[in-house]
């Protein structure tokens, strides 16, 4: 008889779940019935019945029941661990809450910082051959201390011509803001726009060198090969195209720039990613430069526009040093001696975002050390949160000693107990991690601009974030869970049952003290550092600039404006009562957003290039010095009658040209700017045209009617209502002279503050994280002191019965913590000092000196907070009637 076949998978299931003997017995019975069924009915029926019967077994409880004592595998109790974790979480609600809040804050902050770090590190990394792309930068001065980005117009072409290996080179001129008009077919302006940034001239090779390969970048329409070849062709990004032409395709339409030149739209590309240092939205062909700047400017090796950047792709087989040597050769061959102090060097694209010396078109850089600093803060936050947990868990272990003792007596292995407590930690950390994810999402949205982030999507959908969260949860679980679980599982069951140890036998108090000290050391470093950073920025904000920027609003004239127009505006404003003074100038006395032009000046007798000193030329009308309250040291103010040959210099230039120390002796001194002769008619005190990160620069003031780009208006009052109406009146004056241009103004003092925008943001960030550290530390302290107070309630009662006063008891509780926090302050001092000192070196002028009280005050604040927590918590215990605490037994 051939073997009738039973359904194999059913047998497998039975084998898998039942012990051997039971499986044999069950399968035997099933088989017997199976054979019976085949004889009575059919094989198909038998097989169905076999399966049905077998499933019947699976639904029976005895099938699953096992002998408990046969296995010593601790994982058998897995389900029980989670059950116990839930119970103990609920049993010790206050501690759980403190732990969870601390962990949520810590993990959420770490997640936010991680997102920021990743964003900052991702800048400009998405082009093919990113490693080989360099920016040509300009370093000048005898001691090579002037770092600039601009390259003179003829430079890139000369490099390409003479250095044969150099194939890929691309230049661009960034305008930043521009007036843009949308034109109709008849050449009439239909809609007017004022763009604050994004307008650039680029060569066709721009999108070849920077191919944005690893992003979603693409050409939406237009021919990538030809779109940017012809002069006055323009390529828009998608969002710009939608803004200007919401109704349809922009291809072939015309835009007018600065009311000056028209350009035809030849292509649309997708927006650049936010983590690019090219904030371009309107890309005009570089070939237009000839018309815009004029033939003469393009041949000028001296003049430099700092927004004219050149990038190269390093030819295969050569190094950046070799190429720099070639640049030097070409530059020297084509320029006279007095320009040989200028050098063109190469800066790797990958460093562009992190090197503040050169800057970027976005105006924002972040130093690598700041990124590392943020990473450290994230790490420290996780550590402090973990320390809280360790402290509370070990402190609490005494409360749970009975549970542990009983478990051990009933045969619980040490491994079982350790795993139980680890699982408990894991549950708490996981819970906190999930909450932290939500909190960090909210925080990112809230602090988007503070963190310089541009968010594109919800970050909890990002696999990177989810994976980091998993890693953080695991690390924190191990960091926070291993030590307490070892301590707790080590307890001697008999001692544990008797509860014979109170505060000093378990969880080694000394380690807990150590952790509190560690935690508060980190907190104090940050708090002290933040305090000093904030103080320094306050000093900078209120420091004397050497001129008065109060109540001054500034207006930038269009590029096409004539002296006729600018003078009309100035005259009309002067006649109005709200303006106490009005001045026209080529640039502003200070501020981040202003144009700068540098030239060389030397004694009339100078022969060599190195005798020329670089200075900033500020072409102004005679009201400038008076209106900005710049101090005249000697000589006279400029007058309308002065030619460009009469100059006023500042003290810094006087020193640099070694003209002596007495300002009045400099008057009448004959100098030359380039080759043009000039005479000094006045000397003014230094004022800070650049930030306090540099010394006051050398400045020459002279009258030049053709060069006025700015109008500055000093208001006679500063109340908001007055200012608002004054601005309206200025706008009306503007409209009468420039009806086609959109009116825009700035407050000069705010413009000056822009120098420290990044520092201000960083200070805010530090303030935020100091608070976070303080909260976590305070939570931990609160938890610890709660525990200690509870344990010591009887001791307090007995002390009170024996005559101790409230004050004594409070001192008893707080004394220890004051000591610990004082110790952590002492430990934090050198680190904070080192860090702050390093940061302060970025400021050359008005740097605060590190007085002792700048450290003591924040330290004291932390101490007071800690004492308040300890006293608030111990006060009730210390104040209770001793009888009520003692009578329980």
């Amino acid at each position: 008889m051939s073997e009738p076949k039973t359904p194999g998978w059913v047998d497998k299931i039975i084998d898998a779940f039942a012990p051997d003997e039971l499986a044999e017995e069950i399968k035997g019975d099933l088989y017997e019935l199976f054979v019976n069924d085949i004889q009575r009915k059919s094989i198909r029926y038998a097989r169905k019945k076999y399966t049905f019967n077998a499933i019947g077994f699976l639904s029976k409880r005895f099938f699953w029941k096992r002998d408990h004592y046969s296995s010593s595998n601790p994982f058998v109790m897995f389900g029980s661990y989670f059950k116990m974790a839930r119970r103990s979480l609920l049993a010790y609600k206050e501690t759980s809450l403190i732990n969870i809040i601390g962990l949520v804050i810590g993990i959420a902050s770490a997640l936010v910082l991680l997102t920021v770090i990743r964003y900052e590190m991702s800048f400009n990394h998405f082009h093919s051959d990113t490693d080989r792309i360099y920016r040509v930068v300009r370093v000048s001065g005898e001691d090579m201390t002037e770092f600039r980005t601009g390259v003179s117009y003829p430079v890139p072409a000369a490099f390409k011509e003479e250095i044969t290996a150099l194939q890929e080179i691309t230049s661009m001129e960034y305008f930043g803001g521009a007036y843009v008009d949308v034109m109709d077919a008849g050449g009439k302006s239909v809609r007017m726009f004022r763009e604050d940034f994004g307008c650039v001239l680029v060569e066709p090779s721009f999108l070849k060198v920077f191919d944005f390969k690893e992003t979603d970048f693409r050409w939406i329409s237009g021919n990538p090969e030809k779109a940017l070849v012809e002069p006055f062709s323009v390529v828009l990004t998608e969002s710009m195209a939608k803004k200007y032409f919401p109704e349809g395709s922009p291809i072939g339409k015309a835009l007018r720039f600065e009311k000056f030149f028209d350009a035809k739209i030849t292509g649309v590309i997708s927006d650049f990613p936010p983590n690019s240092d090219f904030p371009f939205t309107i890309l005009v062909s570089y070939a237009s430069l000839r018309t815009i700047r004029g033939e003469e400017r393009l041949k000028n090796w001296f003049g430099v526009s700092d927004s004219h950047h050149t990038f190269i792709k390093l030819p295969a087989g050569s190094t950046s040093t070799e190429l720099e040597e070639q640049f030097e050769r070409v530059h020297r061959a084509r320029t006279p001696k007095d320009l040989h102090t200028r050098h063109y060097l190469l800066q790797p694209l990958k460093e562009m975002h992190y090197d503040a010396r050169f800057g970027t078109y976005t105006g924002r850089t972040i130093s690598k050390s700041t990124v590392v600093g943020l990473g450290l803060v994230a790490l420290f936050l996780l550590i402090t949160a973990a320390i809280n947990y360790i402290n509370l868990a070990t402190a609490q272990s005494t409360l749970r000693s009975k549970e542990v003792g009983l478990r051990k007596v009933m045969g619980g292995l040490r491994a079982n107990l350790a795993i139980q407590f680890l699982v408990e930690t894991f549950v708490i950390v996981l819970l906190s991690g999930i909450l932290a994810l939500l909190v960090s999402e909210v925080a990112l949205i809230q602090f988007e601009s503070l963190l310089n982030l541009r968010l594109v999507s919800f970050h909890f959908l990002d696999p990177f974030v989810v994976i980091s969260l998993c890693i953080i949860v695991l690390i924190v679980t191990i960091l926070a869970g291993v030590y307490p679980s070892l301590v707790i599982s080590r307890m001697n069951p008999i001692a544990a049952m008797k509860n014979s140890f109170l505060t000093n036998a378990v969880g080694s108090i000394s380690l807990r003290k150590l952790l509190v000290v560690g935690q508060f050391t980190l907190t104090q470093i940050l708090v002290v550092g933040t305090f000093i950073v904030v103080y320094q920025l306050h000093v900078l904000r209120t420091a004397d600039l050497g001129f008065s920027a109060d109540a001054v609003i500034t207006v930038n004239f269009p590029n096409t404006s004539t002296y006729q127009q600018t003078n009309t505006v100035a005259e009309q404003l002067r006649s109005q009562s709200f303006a106490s003074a009005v001045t026209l100038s080529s640039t502003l006395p200070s501020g981040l957003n202003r144009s700068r032009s540098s030239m060389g000046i030397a004694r009339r007798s100078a022969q060599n290039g190195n005798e020329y000193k670089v200075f900033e030329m500020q072409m102004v009308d005679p009201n400038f010095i008076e209106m900005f309250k710049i101090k005249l040291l000697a000589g006279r103010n400029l007058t309308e009658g002065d030619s460009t040959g009469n100059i006023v210099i500042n003290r810094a230039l006087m020193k640099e040209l070694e003209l002596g120390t007495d300002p009045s002796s400099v008057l009448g001194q004959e100098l030359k700017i380039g080759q043009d002769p000039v005479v000094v008619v006045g000397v003014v005190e230094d004022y800070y045209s650049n930030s306090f990160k540099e010394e006051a620069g050398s400045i020459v003031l002279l009258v030049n009617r053709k060069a006025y780009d700015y109008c500055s208006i000093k208001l006679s009052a500063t109340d908001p209502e007055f200012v608002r109406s004054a601005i309206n009146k200025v706008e009306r004056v503007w409209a009468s002279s420039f009806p086609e241009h959109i009116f825009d103004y700035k407050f000069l003092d705010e413009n000056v503050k822009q120098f420290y925008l990044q520092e201000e943001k960083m200070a805010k960030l530090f303030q935020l994280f100091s608070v976070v550290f303080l909260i976590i530390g305070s939570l931990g302290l609160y938890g610890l002191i709660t525990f200690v107070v509870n344990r010591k309630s009887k001791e307090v009662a007995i002390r009170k019965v024996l005559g101790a006063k409230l004050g004594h008891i409070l001192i008893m509780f707080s004394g220890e913590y004051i000591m610990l926090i004082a110790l952590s302050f002492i430990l934090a001092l050198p680190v904070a000092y080192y860090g702050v000192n390093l940061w302060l070196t970025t400021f050359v002028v008005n740097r605060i000196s590190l007085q002792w009280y700048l450290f003591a005050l924040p330290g004291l604040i932390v101490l007071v907070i800690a004492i308040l927590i300890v006293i608030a918590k111990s006060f009730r215990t210390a104040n209770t009637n001793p009888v009520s605490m003692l009578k329980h037994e």
Partner: protein
Amino acid sequence: MGTRIYLGELEELVLLMVSLLNKEAYGVSITDELKKQTGREITISATHAVLHRLEEKGFVKSKLGGASAERGGRRKRLFSITAYGQSTLIDLKETREMIWQAIAKTSFS
């Protein structure tokens, strides 16, 4: 009879089958016998479950018996009634008879 006996109705029937089959009681034979004697059809897994309970309560004991070809060479677990099982059955029977006698005197007269 002092203590309460925890023996369900199906458990009692199965226990009776075990003593009836004497030395030849195992899952399949008990299920068959139950059907033959009472007309009740229960699944093989239910029989096993009841036998497990009976063994836990100490009414039956079991040992693995010989293998046979119709079981595909697998051994069967043979059940036999324990002394406690027997006395429990007798107890139950006596209690019922006592009650029946009382009923006969009153209601069914």
